[in-house]
């Protein structure tokens, strides 16, 4: 039989754990709502930008415009942007980025070649990927790690990171840039995505070849407008990945904490049962002692 006092202490501790996980779940839910709002706010901007971009690139004369962000080079120097979280307790959120990526470095021909030659660099956004890969043999850029530290993910901070990556690509510091992040599907599901950031995938521009029914005036010229817009579209894409990951993180944490609260509840039920059983056994034992004592007294009387 378990000791009554021990069980009581155990119940106490499980109960306070449950309170903590419950609170964390509610905090995550509030943050998730905010993160989702940010995604929704970005949508009109991103949609309109893509729409205008399509219109312009459909009519531009390809000879006139040299897209330096679409230049395909042999992918020798590779940059991987890994978006994870700063904090744990969010289920498999971080390992769903870290593990497939670690595997990719071993199996993918481009990545393993770059890694062996020491030309693979990681740009970590969120501390978790940094903590993992820093212990292994990787070159890591940590300049933009703290994006998730502030209350809101600010576009200005993300913009700086995106600009750094874009400039480095144009200056041939990297030949190929991928972003690895968790795409937000719903609060309970995230999907790990590998998105080619640079060079801009051909498909993005081909899509714009549809007929445009409006005759626009372009000022100053299509090429110059593209020059302004493509970096904007890239920054928006980068921002979207960060926002998606942010929403996914809070969704994952909410689900994980909900599960933990539930498990604590189950555990409490079991503990209470064994506590009551022990208590009942004690009482029975005491009654037995009293009765037999009384009987012994009666006999002697």
């Amino acid at each position, binding site marked *: 039989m378990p000791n009554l006092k021990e069980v009581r202490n155990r119940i106490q501790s499980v109960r306070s754990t449950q309170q903590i996980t419950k609170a964390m779940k509610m905090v995550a839910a509030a943050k998730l709502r905010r993160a989702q709002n940010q995604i929704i*706010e*970005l949508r009109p*901007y991103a949609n*309109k930008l893509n729409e*205008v971009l399509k219109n312009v690139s459909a009519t531009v004369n390809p000879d006139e415009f040299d897209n330096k962000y679409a230049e395909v080079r042999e992918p020798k120097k590779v940059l991987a942007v890994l978006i994870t979280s700063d904090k744990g307790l969010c289920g498999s959120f971080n390992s769903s980025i870290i593990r497939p990526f670690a595997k990719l470095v071993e199996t993918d021909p481009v990545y393993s070649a770059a890694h062996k030659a020491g030309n693979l660099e990681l740009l970590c956004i969120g501390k978790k990927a940094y903590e993992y890969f820093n212990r292994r043999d990787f070159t890591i850029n940590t300049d933009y790690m703290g994006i998730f530290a502030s209350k809101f993910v*600010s576009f200005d901070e993300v913009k700086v990171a995106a600009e750094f990556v874009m400039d480095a690509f144009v200056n041939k510091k990297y030949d190929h840039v991928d972003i690895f992040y968790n795409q937000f599907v719903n609060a309970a599901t995230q999907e790990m995505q590998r998105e080619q950031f640079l060079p801009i995938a051909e498909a993005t521009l081909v899509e714009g070849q549809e007929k445009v029914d409006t005759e*626009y005036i*372009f*000022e100053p010229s299509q090429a110059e407008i593209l020059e302004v817009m493509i970096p*904007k579209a890239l920054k928006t894409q980068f921002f979207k990945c960060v926002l998606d990951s942010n929403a996914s993180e809070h969704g994952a944490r909410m689900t994980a904490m909900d599960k933990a609260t539930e498990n604590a509840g189950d555990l409490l039920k079991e503990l209470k049962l064994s506590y009551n059983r022990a208590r009942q056994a004690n009482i029975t034992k005491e009654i037995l002692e009293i009765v037999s004592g009384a009987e012994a007294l009666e006999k002697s009387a």
Partner: protein
Amino acid sequence: MMKLEIITPVEKVYEGQVESVQMPGSQGSFEVLENHAAIVSSLEEGTVLIRKASDTENIDISGGVVEVLNNHIVILAESVTA
């Protein structure tokens, strides 16, 4: 009357009916009145001057792109300073 929208990645800054809009095009400031032809132009950092029926409003933008189509103006800016 035309419809004007100013959108940033973070929020929709302005949405409303306007008489005219003056903005900092990359080849000099220009103004859009009703029934302007369809145009796409890049914008410099500067002030967007919005004239409504009764009053005017200023919004500073950090540069961006504007599309005018069928009396509907959309300004895409990376950030605004109110």
